[in-house]
């Protein structure tokens, strides 16, 4: 189910079955293995081969969508009928100028790694066992997940557009748990050679064993924070939902509305959707078949554009950004390859320049629905929160609750690291987030994790 001929055949049969002047289809096949571990034991281990077809039929500029995981002729015909029925009951999308027709050449990128696609479960288990053994030497237990796999994507439409690409992913998350604290490290890569599981284990262990003899408390207030890439990535996941999508722009909830072209954030803040960067997680097209390009969402603090599928771009009279990741989705565009530009600092320089602040490894359970017009969010810190005093990391802190407007925070970025890291996102098989370390002034801490009175 992963080969090009099969995938494009499914697309062709679906478009034939549509019996419509306009239709487009997307086929996604996944072959993955996810090894989850806890207490330094591999406790959940799964492999999956699955595929799905989504068919969108356009009747008088009105759309209907149906999805199936079966590809025999009867099922495809039934899926087409469901999509047609939905389209017949739908209404024309205002401004819609038809499906993509230009069929431009795709960017030439290498998105597949044979070595990653062929990693066997036993190979991963052996590497995990070595990491577990190394952790025991330091009285550390590990929890986490190591996911590898290949994704095949085909897209096509009734205007002759046909696309096919394969990509691979190699994603590991490691939590090191010691007697007095935990640490965390994560990375997503396209190639097996780009990810060193043992190094991630060592990185997490370093955080778990840092300042274990010194813990302090912190009163609520505004502090300088140094955020590691996973912390920024969690915030950007929410920005993607509440601020970057075509839907949030059209319905008025995004802080981009009324602010395009304005310098709302710091001049050192540039965030793009970039699936062409060979050092990130490259992919050549979106599900509507449009060639991917680098799209600057925020450029030197100036808000440039939300991400838009073609349907919503037509509706809004804007340019599509090739960000349709599912046909007919309510988001009408999502940034699956968020890339924040780095600066010229190092993490160590940021720490040295901080008089009284917090070094944050990651966030937990962020929610961005508090006040979307200012991107007010809340969450807690997790797996390594440290107090910085007079330029040195001096103590472990409890997990802290924060409540912070991201519009305000991204206007207060003091420095960014040169080095960036790619972090995976749970909702996204094609991409992730690439972010530097950021030092931000005046981050609002509102509480902390405490067990309360015991009884």
């Amino acid at each position, binding site marked *: 189910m992963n080969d090009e001929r099969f995938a494009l055949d499914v697309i062709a049969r679906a478009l034939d079955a549509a019996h419509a002047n306009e239709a487009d289809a997307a086929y996604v096949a996944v072959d993955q*293995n996810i090894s989850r*571990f*806890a*207490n330094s034991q*591999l*406790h*959940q*281990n*799964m*492999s*999956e*081969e*699955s595929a799905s077809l989504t068919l969108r039929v356009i009747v008088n500029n009105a*759309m209907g*969508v*149906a*999805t*199936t*995981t*079966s590809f025999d002729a009867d*099922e495809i015909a039934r899926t087409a009928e469901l*999509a047609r029925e*939905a*389209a017949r*009951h739908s209404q024309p999308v*205002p401004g819609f100028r038809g499906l993509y027709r230009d069929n431009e050449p795709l960017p030439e990128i290498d998105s597949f790694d044979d070595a990653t696609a062929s990693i066997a*479960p036993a190979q*991963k*288990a*052996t590497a995990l066992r070595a990491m577990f053994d190394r952790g025991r030497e330091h009285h550390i237990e590990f*929890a986490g*997940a190591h*996911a590898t796999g290949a994704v095949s994507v085909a897209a096509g439409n009734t205007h002759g557009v046909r696309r096919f690409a394969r990509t691979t992913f190699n994603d590991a*998350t490691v*939590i090191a748990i010691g007697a007095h604290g935990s640490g965390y490290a994560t990375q997503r890569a396209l190639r097996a050679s780009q990810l060193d599981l043992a190094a991630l284990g060592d990185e997490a262990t370093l955080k778990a064993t840092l300042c274990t003899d010194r813990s302090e408390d912190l009163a609520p207030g505004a502090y300088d924070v140094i955020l590691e890439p996973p912390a920024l990535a969690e915030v950007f996941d929410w920005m993607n939902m509440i601020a970057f999508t075509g839907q949030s722009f059209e*319905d*008025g*909830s995004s802080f981009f509305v009324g602010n395009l072209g304005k310098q709302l954030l710091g001049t050192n803040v540039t965030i793009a959707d970039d699936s062409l960067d060979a050092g990130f997680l490259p992919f050549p097209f979106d599900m509507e078949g449009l060639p991917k390009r680098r799209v600057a969402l925020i450029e030197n603090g100036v808000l440039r554009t939300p991400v838009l599928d073609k349907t919503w771009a037509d509706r809004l009279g804007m340019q599509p950004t090739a960000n349709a990741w599912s046909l007919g989705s*309510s988001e009408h565009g999502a940034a699956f390859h968020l890339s924040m530009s780095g600066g010229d600092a190092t993490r160590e320089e940021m720490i040295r320049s901080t008089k009284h602040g917090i070094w944050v490894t990651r966030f*937990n*359970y*962020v*929610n961005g629905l508090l*006040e979307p*017009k200012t991107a007010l969010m*809340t*969450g*807690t810190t*997790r797996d390594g929160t440290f107090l910085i005093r007079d330029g040195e990391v001096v103590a472990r802190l409890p*997990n802290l*609750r924060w*409540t912070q407007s991201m519009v305000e925070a991204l206007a207060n970025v003091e420095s960014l690291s040169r080095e960036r890291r790619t972090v995976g996102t*749970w*909702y996204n098989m094609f991409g992730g987030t690439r972010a530097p370390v950021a030092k931000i002034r005046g981050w609002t801490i509102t*509480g902390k*994790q*405490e*067990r*309360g009175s015991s*009884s």
Partner: protein
Amino acid sequence: MTPERAQLEDVLRSLGDVRYADVRYTATHAQDVKVRNGEVDHLASTVDRAVGVRVLVGNGWGFAATSDVSEETIRRTARRALEVAAASNLASTQIITLSDVEPHVARWESHYEIDPWSVPIEKKLEHLMNATEPMRGDPRIHQVSGDISCYRQEKVFASTIGSFIEQTTTQMGGGIEAVAIDEGEFQRRTYPNPFGGDFQAEGWEFIERLDLPKKALEIRDEALQLLAASKAPAGRFDLIVGSAQLALQVHESCGHPTELDRAMGLEISLAGGSFLQPQMLGHFRYGSDLVNIVADATIPGSIGSFAFDDDGVPAQRFHLVRDGTFVDYLTGRDTAPFLGRVSNGTVRAETAARIPIIRMTNINLEPGTTPLADLIADTKRGIFVETNKSWSIDDLRLNFQFGCEVAWEIENGRLTRLLKNPLYTGNTPDFWRSCDAVGDRASWQIWGLPNCGKGDPMQTMRVAHGAPAARFRNVEMG
């Protein structure tokens, strides 16, 4: 297309000499209808078929799944599960014990009066248009929308202990919302709940009973009033939490921390652990004497109900918190022995393509004896909050912050001003111990939440929570 019993049992036999194995097949059907600002925003159908094979070899679990339900592919998937189990044995030294369960051969279907798929799309659209169009007109109403969703999952389970179980659940959900925007102020009101509304294991009769059109003007007016309302104050107040919001409070601060896999550290990599540790069982003061929280997978018509879990264990009803004391976890066959207990039947997977893990069923705060009107009348100075807007809780499920769509000030036993953007925060046991009044059966309602996330890959589970309104003393707001 549904595999026959003989075929599934043949697959199990093909695995050879294993400690345990099961094979599941699911066909999951969904239809989603959404209207927005007088247009059909989204109209989509999905059919997802999957087969999953789970096998225990030695002390290693292996799981493999496929969306191709042909006989040949299912057999290949079974062989892959064996390969994965062998790999697990390379990096696991723990002893896995499965609690006992009797073999069951059974068939179960949830009940409905009117099949969701028998209702024509045009009727669903007409219903949503009738509910949303009256909300439009005021220029500050930027968006009105309505959702109706239909869900059906057919599941077949066969295991090496001889069980063969067929289950079908049919569910519907519906809701409406109004979004008001004015000079940078953004307010949303929904009925009966955000994110698609409320969900029950019923048919079209549930949508008729919701009566979305009847509530439309009320939520529109509240969204408009919220634009000009004062912000909910910061400080410590007596807090009355309405049924819908309290249902989510139960979900986050009781449902998740009583999942035994979390307490054992098995979910730390994604969702986190739990402050409720096994040594606390039977004596830890989770809440006040008035707090009784029950897991009940047997409630007819609720989306957290079933007849057997995905271990083949019968659905059950049991206390998690009794008279304020923490007394039990949600468990499965391979976790319950850690406590020296047998599974209480809470292991489920989103589809057959995912590993079954411990999931909430219907986790309910049992009703008390105080009518809602008396709760308010008995409060001198406080805040009443209702309908969730935002939620966040730490990795041990201790420190939480919830935002609600709407609040009202309470002064001298009466609801007075409408307040916007209420936030309340606290520590789970301290919060539940401050509960000094629990609403009666009249204010108790069961709420379906179809979007509980857990696991890796992320599994979205359909769970439910019954809750009345309740009062909590001296809660931090803002």
